[in-house]
């Protein structure tokens, strides 16, 4: 099959960008989307041009490195699928395909389709953990976790941190990402002692990074390659409201971070 690509090219963070047209010829339907880009890049190098930069690593849909807007949809047309797991059989022969980087003020473009998602690491650093220093943990089976609760925690923990939720959100909100971690840890008995400060600090950091607010459009759960439900946002909001009532106490306790 033959595909016409329109790809966002931007040589550096401060350079102006533009859409550039490329013809991808003799594409096999069994290729992944990234393998199709590999072939285009091989051709560019052979012609002495600069290949298209894009993030990718595991190509199994789990590392969260890859992700581009494909015809305006984060990770492209197939639901529950990261860009690396999208295959060309999802496109028609002769299709025009527009490829752009994640759109968000909080994810500045580094080059072409590569963006800086460091804000996600800082949100986790603000409180997305259980303080359990190495050593001294008690026997694992002394902390029973009801199966349904463990399953809900696992559903939330499946987040791969790709940023599609932010890119898909009309407000550029990172609520699905932040709420997934707050839910994962807040559902488990081990996560209770830090539940209040976790919610306060992660939400504050999310705001500081310049992500927009959530107004429950639900675009994020549509785009999420792990199909994380916006139910987690309800949990985050509840934890945040409860935590806000404890905010004074948090300020007293604060200062260790």
């Amino acid at each position, binding site marked *: 099959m033959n595909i016409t690509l329109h790809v966002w090219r931007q040589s550096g963070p401060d350079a102006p960008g533009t859409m550039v047209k490329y013809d991808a010829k003799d594409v096999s339907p069994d290729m992944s989307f990234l393998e199709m880009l590999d072939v285009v890049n091989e051709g*560019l190098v052979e012609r002495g041009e600069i290949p298209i930069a894009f993030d990718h690593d595991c190509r199994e849909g789990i590392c969260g490195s890859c992700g581009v807007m494909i015809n305006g949809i984060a990770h492209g047309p197939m639901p529950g699928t990261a860009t690396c797991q999208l295959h060309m059989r999802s496109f028609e022969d002769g299709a025009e395909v527009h490829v752009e980087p994640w759109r968000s003020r909080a994810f500045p473009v580094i080059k072409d389709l590569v963006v800086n998602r460091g804000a996600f690491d800082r949100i986790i650093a603000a409180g*997305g953990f259980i303080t359990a220093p190495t050593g001294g*943990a008690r026997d694992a089976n002394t902390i*029973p976790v009801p199966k349904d609760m463990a399953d809900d925690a696992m559903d939330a923990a499946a987040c791969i*941190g790709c940023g599609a939720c932010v890119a898909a959100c009309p407000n550029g909100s990172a609520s699905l990402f932040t709420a997934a971690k707050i839910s994962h840890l807040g559902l488990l008995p081990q996560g209770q002692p830090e539940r209040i400060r976790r919610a306060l600090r992660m939400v504050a950091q999310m705001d500081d990074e310049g992500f927009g607010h959530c107004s429950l459009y639900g675009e994020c759960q549509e785009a999420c390659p792990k199909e994380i439900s916006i139910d987690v946002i309800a949990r985050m909001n509840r934890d945040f409201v409860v935590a806000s009532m404890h905010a004074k106490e948090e300020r007293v306790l604060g200062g260790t971070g």
Partner: protein
Amino acid sequence: MELRSKTPSGPLVEKWSKHRFEMKLVNPANKRKYTVIVVGSGLAGGAAAASLSELGYNVKCFCFQDSPRRAHSIAAQGGINAAKNYQNDGDSIYRLFYDTIKGGDFRSREANVYRLAEVSVNIIDQCVAQGVPFAREYGGLLANRSFGGAQVSRTFYARGQTGQQLLLGCYQALEKEVSRGGVTMYPRTEMLDVVVVNGRARGIVTRDMVSGAIETHLADAVILGTGGYGNVFYLSTNAKGSNVTAIWRAYKRGAAFANPCFTQIHPTCIPVSGEHQSKLTLMSESLRNDGRVWVPKRKEDCAKRPRDIPEQDRDYYLERKYPSFGNLSPRDIASRAAKEVCDEGRGVGPGGRGVYLDFGDAIKRLGRDKIAERYGNLFEMYERITDENPYEVPMRIYPAVHYTMGGLWVDYNLMSTVPGLHVIGEANFSDHGANRLGASALMQGLADGYFVVPLTIGDYFGSNKLEQVAADNPAVRATEDEVRARTERLLSINGSRTVTSIHRELGRILWEYCGMARDAAGLEKALRLIPQLREEFWRDVRVPGTGAELNQSLEHAGRVADFLELAELMCIDALHREESCGGHFRTEHQTADGEALRHDDRFAYVAAWEYGGDAKPPILHKEPLAFENVALSQRSYK
């Protein structure tokens, strides 16, 4: 070069506790005076960086990905072993130790493996405390499943995403330490050399992958947790970025490279679909708990639809050849068996390089819902890639390069032959011998990172007086200059071949001659072809762009340049080891029924290769393996 394993004396079961008592300590006030560099942020590196920071050391942690959460440990699917004996099925630390030694075909160090089994139980406790959402039974207790090479259920798992959940636990601990100020994180930063001053590792040279800046970072010790080198084969289950550069640079600075030819070929991967293939995708070994592996008995049936082949015309060859372990035979054995039936012309799918992994019986026995609960995400992944529904038609699988047991040689303290340079996780050679059992890589990475290296680093600092090293030290300057010159050289060749085309060609040579079955003639041929390809690379490769920007072609070129040297060492090692053991199968050395034939009288040692200098052969050093607790025997899974 002298290989001193520093294995503690005394009975096996007491070695680690004795050693922990005998090791020197650094008092809490002094720990903050030491800086430790950790390269890699996977299970081994991430765990080490977080744990060292918790102890009070200053840690600088480096990864080439844009976030430490993306290290390749994340892709591990099936599970992590631990000798908890929660199932009351006769497991024990000693049994896990024994299974691991036997699974490795008696080519690993007893004391290391025993320690691994010993701390395995602490790993599960630690991970649960961090909030890792392991699978649970209805009573709220932890669930287990079985894995290859064991007859007990000791594998803990989080759906088919165990590596992800363990890594996120580790990553969260790491970010906790970043926010506390104990760890400085350097993402999108690639290590290109190790700085050795007066014989000790004192830092690294890195390239900032966004700005292109080449910089030196100095420290009191360096830890490499940089993973395996399976991508030398071009096609493997490794992430595209996984590479050998960190440990290869260390090798060229004096760290011995142990058993480089010990490669694990995983039996259950999705077969190659065409020339465009950029990587291979693993289907978790856990599938072999319920899936049955078969091919048609007759060649003529291979083109038929699998459901049209009646039961009596199917050859469940693993169940037939290995009745006691059946579909859960160890990886090396299952892979070779698949190759054998395909070589006989009984393979299925395009090109005849595939076997069926069939869930038909399991779905009949347990129902579709139960199978979906156990493997749903794996089935979806398979369908996305192949466009076939494994609930309806059997999966097609074929072996693929997955893991490298070889790596930098380390002593009992996980220190290489360069003092101050520690190596952990897949990057070292230590615990898996000639074949790693399933669900043991996660265990080893976390054992090294959480429970071993944070202690042995203290012993290194407590036992050695380290001098100050200034940034303008001649050895520091020289190393940095060499890195700059090498980068400029790659950019200046401006030839006609792409990096990928050379990498793919290298992969084909290695897969053909140093893959699942090896012989002297093939290895000698590879040893002629690889230097020719390397020469062509340095004469004719084309790396577009400049060094002062994000340049993925340049990153790839640097890694392939190192793979081109490593490949030769792998073949030299495979040629010298005139026996078969585990994943290293020399066709000249097999039993009457085609199993690996070891020669313990001549090869019960670790082959540690010392860099001999440019254009000079490497120098072989042998660490004899003494088996005081287990009897060397012919492995049998029949």
